[in-house]
């Protein structure tokens, strides 16, 4: 600031620092003018198309990405399970966890001659091979004959007798299976619409 005296500069600065006071009328006039201006309305598509600047925090975006991955995996698993149960074959061939368990049941009589037995149970895929089901516990009818009549869903089944909680015995009168993966083979049972076929 060559040539300008310091005192002048100080006077200009002091003048600029002095607060400018407007009267109330001025404020009102300005606001009235602003309100009278046409409003700028954003439509939905304008909001979407309007360019924006987005700030991303690395941690938050990583969390969001992992959450998205987790949700996708969960959905994939759920859809896969659903598809398999619906499409494993032809509509009728759903897994037993689904419709096979809800197939109509028909009474089936299981008979085993076991004169020395103290307890006889029927286990099979229809009761998850669980010998504790009272419904499948055979009664001694006398003369070594044990029998129980239980409801079994329609379809092809594998089953066995469990004698005295320890010995697995295939039904000697039923078709046999050679599924001896765990020792003794099982028996086959085909239940069809009210018709018992063993």
């Amino acid at each position, binding site marked *: 600031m060559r040539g300008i005296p310091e005192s002048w500069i100080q006077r200009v600065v002091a003048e600029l620092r002095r607060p400018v006071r407007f009267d109330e009328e001025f404020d009102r006039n300005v606001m009235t003018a602003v309100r009278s201006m046409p409003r700028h309305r954003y439509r939905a598509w304008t909001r979407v198309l309007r360019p924006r600047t987005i700030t991303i925090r690395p941690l938050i975006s990583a*969390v969001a990405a992992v959450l998205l991955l987790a949700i996708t995996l969960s959905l994939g698993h759920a859809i896969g*399970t659903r598809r398999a149960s619906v499409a494993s074959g032809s509509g009728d061939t759903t897994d037993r966890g689904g419709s096979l368990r809800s197939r109509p049941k028909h009474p089936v009589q299981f008979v085993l001659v076991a004169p020395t037995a103290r307890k006889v149970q029927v286990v099979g895929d229809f009761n998850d091979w669980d010998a504790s089901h009272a419904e499948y516990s055979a009664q001694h009818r006398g003369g070594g004959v044990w029998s129980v009549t239980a409801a079994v869903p329609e379809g092809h089944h594998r089953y066995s007798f469990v004698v005295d909680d320890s010995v697995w015995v295939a039904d000697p*009168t039923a078709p046999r299976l050679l599924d001896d*993966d765990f020792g003794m083979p099982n028996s086959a049972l085909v239940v069809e619409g009210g018709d018992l076929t063993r």
Partner: protein
Amino acid sequence: MRAGRSVVGAWCVALSLAQVARAQLRGDGRLAKLDSTTRVAVNVVVDSARKARLPTEPLIDKALEGAKRGASGERIVTAVRGLFADLRTARSALGPSASIDELNAGANALHAGLPMRNLAQLRTVSQHAGRAHVTLPLTVATDLVSRGVPVGVASDVVLSLARAGLRDADFTMFQRNVRLDIEHGADAATAAQTRARGAVLHGGRAT
């Protein structure tokens, strides 16, 4: 404040991942009876079956049977894998429209030694004879083999019966008669062939 939000976010992520991992590993709730190593191995086979659009229930059922019989984990996994392979072969032989019962019976028949081509033949012959399902013929064929009838004879016999249009009740009667003959001392193959000839001669009525 930000740190708190990050902790909550990380916690949510961990929970979600844990949930997904648990769902993948746990699979069917009934398999909880198996030890963790066996359960994971069985679930892998079950998932493979699901992806191949094969029924998973027979596999779970096989694992449950093994657990109830006190079989070792290794034996259970081997059995489940074997069944998976048989189910896949059975579907190839019986076609994509095969029901879960047919696949089950087909897998059992394959396990008993019946060749895949015989299953396919049985399907074709049965369709020509107007039979909708081959579950029982396959079950009877498996039974014959289990009672000592040679695989070739068992296949031929069941095919001839299916060709003659035997109903399920006739198949059951045939199986019962052959079993009784064998129990009375008859040669297994001879009993099966003789009873089959009788059933076919009687116009599809088992003797």
